[in-house]
């Protein structure tokens, strides 16, 4: 079922890249339309899965990735509609398509264990997904910042110069995405910690919930990296390009946690 949104996202990706290169309004409108169609199809898929399982499908790595992509694209559509700026789409969509390919081709079976239910569990997972989507946006914005920065610095005002918003706008968008992501990451980790402390400990996964578990450890490292970026980096003069690199590094850690660690390493969060 996840194949339909994937197909629409792929078409939207092609349209966004085409629009970025050619800057024709028709291709831009087509890109947005395809993306909206993809997000609607995706909403339908998640809705159907929720009805089927009786809960929001968040308990496999694949379904969590699918939900992150959904949140990421919703956040992107919001920025596109409020700023009327489509240039970012060409950078966000490749990431969304790559991530969405995982649930589309390797869907997991949702685990209905009691330990993975309840309001605290939902808040924990949803907060983290929002955080990861924000970090994905920050990373993409950071990459575009570096591309534009290099063009201006090298005095070759070309492709990106004509298409991207100003460095200042990119920098503040990046900063905003980082702060929003950090807030959700903090909430997610804190709620997760409370949740782990109050559930009965007979499930092996609950027993493994400590800093020794790689997924939890890497999430905490992520939190440290983003805390530094959100609050300390600019005070010591790490604005602009360094901040952009830091967003890319932070998101690389998020991806590491999301894909290889979720699938192969963790014992407490093997969903």
């Amino acid at each position: 079922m996840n194949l339909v949104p994937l197909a629409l996202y792929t078409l939207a990706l092609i349209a966004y890249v085409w629009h970025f290169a050619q800057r024709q309004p028709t291709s831009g409108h087509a890109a947005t339309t395809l993306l909206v169609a993809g997000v609607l199809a995706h909403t339908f898929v998640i809705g159907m899965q929720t009805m089927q399982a009786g809960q929001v499908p968040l308990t496999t790595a694949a379904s969590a990735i699918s939900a992150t992509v959904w949140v990421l694209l919703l956040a992107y559509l919001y920025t596109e509609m409020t700023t009327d700026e489509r240039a970012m789409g060409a950078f966000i969509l490749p990431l969304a398509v790559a991530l969405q390919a995982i649930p589309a081709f390797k869907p997991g079976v949702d685990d209905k264990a009691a330990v993975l239910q309840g309001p605290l569990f939902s808040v924990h997972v949803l907060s983290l997904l929002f955080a990861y989507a924000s970090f994905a946006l920050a990373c993409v914005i950071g990459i575009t910042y570096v591309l534009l920065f290099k063009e201006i610095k090298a005095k070759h005002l070309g492709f990106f110069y004509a298409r991207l918003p100003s460095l200042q706008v990119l920098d503040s968008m990046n900063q905003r995405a980082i702060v929003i992501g950090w807030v959700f990451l903090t909430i997610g980790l804190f709620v997760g910690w409370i949740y782990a402390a109050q559930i009965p400990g007979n499930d092996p996964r609950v027993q493994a919930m400590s800093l020794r578990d790689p997924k939890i450890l890497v999430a905490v490292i992520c939190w440290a990296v983003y805390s530094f970026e959100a609050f300390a980096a600019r005070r010591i003069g790490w604005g602009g390009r360094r901040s952009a690199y830091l967003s890319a590094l932070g998101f690389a850690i998020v991806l590491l946690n999301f894909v290889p660690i979720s699938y192969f390493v963790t014992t407490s969060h093997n969903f």
Partner: protein
Amino acid sequence: MHLVLVGISHRTAPVELRERIDFQARGLDNALRALAARGTVREAVVLSTCNRAELYGVCDEIDQGRSAFVEFITDFHNLDRQSLQPHVYQVADLDVARHLFRVAAGLDSLVVGEPQILGQVKEAHAAAGTTHAAGPFLNRLFHSSFAVGKRVRTETGLGSGAVSVSFAAVSLARKIFGDLKGRNVLVVGAGEMGKLTALHMKSQGVHQVTIVSRTMAHAARTAEAIGGASAAPWEELDTLLGNADIVITATGAASPILTKAHIETVMRPRRNRPLFLIDIAMPRDVESAAGEIEQVFLYNIDDLQATVRENLARRASEVARAESIVGEEVEKFGMWLRSRGAIPTVVALRQRFDAVRRSEVDRLAATLPADVREKVEDVTRLVVEKLLLTPTEQLKALSDTETVAAYSEALGRLFGLTSPQAQSQESTGERTDSEDETASQRRSDRGDRRVEPFVRPQKR
């Protein structure tokens, strides 16, 4: 009915002549009224900018329209016809559309792709609108030209990139800082170049412009000339550099006044807040190695000129795409123009039907009470309207001249439309109401070829 254009531009006329033929200076309204008073063309629009003066019109005969326009220009500006003639271009019908579309797209401008021309074309049309000088033909032509201008700007890169050094500096500043409001500009040196660039920045709404010079009196004089700027002594240079976002250096110093080490010291307390250095001095005022510092963007006059050259080359490469858009739109306009050929037949057909209706109603009138007669009037008018609706739409949708002629011929024969009335309507375009009928009647009564321009029905 023909479209004609007579004009001069930077391509055909020297600046002295262009200065003399400036309709804008004497008011477009006055020019349009003076043209209307002559009664030589049916519709008119006057486009007047510093690089061109053009008269667009609609007339019955091309040659008559052209000479009327040339005569008007010479009379209105007290010029000798002989001195004007070699510089004037005259085009007709679809070539008028092609010319105007190219003008609106910026393809005919001195700096290809410059954006002001579209606004000037709109102003010209608006002026003609308020004086009722533009009618159905020129309204359609000008609205199409606005669409062409917009398409070329959005679909091609013809208008992109700065093509002057000072605008290149401003657009770079915008790309670094976004909005320039709230930014501080520091001008080092009190010369003319620095002043000009500062004025350009000031027009972008920057927060503060400060002039610093080795001679305080010079700085104060320049600050006063800029207006709203302040002057500061040379000793405060470092403090000012710390606060500035954009620095323009334009001193006559023989060696760099800002070295890399100097800028590094300035940048430290700024915590990497970006600094845009525009070095327009020759020899240079800023050591080129200063551009290596993170968050320092250094552009000298050569860099800015290179940017301008690149932009001009890029614009040139977009010309073909813009021309093809113009071609497409001329084609569309041509189709519309050809479909107008059916209008006289439509008018004649309606008049024929209405005449039959009226004669039958009049015949009955004597035998009917007043209220019933009114109802009969309404019903018969409605029946005629409904019967003619589809044929009218079909005729107006025809786009090639041959089909239009064949349909007109057939309808003419079937309904006996080849009356002198239809002929006279042919020359008045689509005016259908009785007011127009009497106008054309009056003209034929006078027996001259004088047309009555700019008298349009308020509602069609």
